[in-house]
């Protein structure tokens, strides 16, 4: 088990948002979390990168449990898991290229020439070869999100966490971002995906977890979960979502 989550509970200011969540992720696997808004999908990702402290449970990377109360341990986890946010969260004062290069330069201290070459290559990969010098407010939502993906990849993470990365985008921009992710999937990137794009989830995921009110209700391969859900709540959600 590469990443395993066991009995995870968490919340914000006294309100429990996650209750006893357990699942695991193998290297090279793509697992998706689906479910209604407020079901805790994003909180799972925020717990993993230490933005929300876990209240109970065990998160283990490569078999060893992570102590989220230790700064060093959290830094270690963040070295290996990279998250892409719904609102892209690009640094507004930096060009696309600087957004991608900043952490490798300032956190890792990798050699500048290498970092810049790598950042340019990453931007080219996500189809933004001509936007190196553009500031976030000069880019469309889809372009910003692709910069954010390049930025996450620049730290060479083991796992990419995608937090509803297309939810803030205009429909015609969703495809360009999803194509980028498809490319990563084809290259064997391990990913944990929170998404409302059901067709995409179905296409790329090896397993899908349906969450509701902070709990994992049902788990299974996408075909099974979408076509023959076992629980009523999952059936309900899937029918509603697929109807439109």
């Amino acid at each position: 088990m590469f990443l395993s989550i066991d009995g995870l509970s968490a919340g914000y200011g006294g309100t429990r948002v996650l209750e006893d969540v357990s699942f695991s992720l193998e290297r090279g696997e793509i697992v998706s979390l689906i479910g209604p808004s407020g079901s805790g999908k994003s909180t799972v990702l925020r717990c993993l990168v230490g933005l929300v402290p876990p209240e109970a449970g065990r998160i283990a990377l490569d078999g060893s449990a992570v102590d989220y109360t230790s700064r060093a341990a959290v830094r270690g986890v963040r070295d290996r898991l990279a998250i892409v946010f719904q609102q892209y969260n690009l640094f507004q004062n930096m060009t696309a290229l600087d957004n991608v290069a900043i952490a490798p330069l300032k956190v890792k201290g990798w050699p500048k020439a290498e970092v810049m070459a790598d950042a340019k290559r990453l931007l080219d990969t996500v189809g933004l070869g001509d936007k190196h010098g553009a500031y976030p407010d000069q880019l469309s939502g889809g372009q910003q999100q692709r910069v954010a993906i390049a930025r996450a990849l620049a730290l060479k993470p083991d796992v990419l966490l995608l937090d509803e990365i297309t939810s803030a985008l205009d429909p015609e921009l969703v495809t360009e971002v999803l194509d980028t992710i498809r490319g990563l999937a084809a290259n064997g990137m391990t990913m944990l995906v929170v998404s409302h794009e059901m067709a995409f989830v179905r296409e790329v995921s090896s397993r899908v977890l349906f969450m509701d009110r902070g709990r994992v209700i049902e788990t299974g391969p996408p075909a099974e979960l979408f076509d023959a859900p076992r629980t009523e709540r999952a059936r309900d959600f899937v029918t509603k979502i697929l109807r439109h």
Partner: protein
Amino acid sequence: MFATLIAEAPRFFTYWNMVFLATAVGNTLVMAFAGCGLGLLFGLGLAVTRAERIVHVAPLRWLAILFVEVFRRIPVLVLLLFVFFTFQLLGFSLHALAVGTIAIVLRASSLFAENFRAGIESVHPNQWDAAEVMNLSPLQTLRLTVLPQAWPVILPPMTIGLVGMIKATSLASQISVLELTFAARQLNQRGFSALIAFGTILVIYFVISWGVARLGASVERRLVPQHRRA
């Protein structure tokens, strides 16, 4: 009026009076620039100390808030007397110029701390999240992305604050610091008309304040990209 001024001018603009005024200008500038320079430094320190994303020790944050709230609310004149008598009680005999500078530092720190805080808080929290998950330290985040985005909010009121501090140095005349206002009063008492004595320092205050405002505007031009200026 102008006739009086012209008649008095040769007697007023003598070498010794100019040396006297130059000393006063020097002292005014020392108080203003040392006071505001240290005030900027401590102000940034205070704002950083009370920022929840940077300092996780709550009592430290409370201390910073207390300092800012207290020194921001006391009239500068009272602050001057407070510093003056505090040092006297402690048994130090401090040069009046030092007392004036310390009072300006206290006031400027608390004032600029609020400018910095408003700027830091104007930056969206998701910028901190993004930096944090990439292991940028809080101070790196502040320096590399938060402050650069905060300058448009920080700088305009800060320039006003700086000019305000220059004007506040005139209150140090009350504790006998030989600064511009004190010098004008002395010259007035030596028989020069109030018109020429205070008129001269009025022009000098204006030139200094105008220079600082221009400086502020040029710093703003350098730190804030064109499309982000308010």
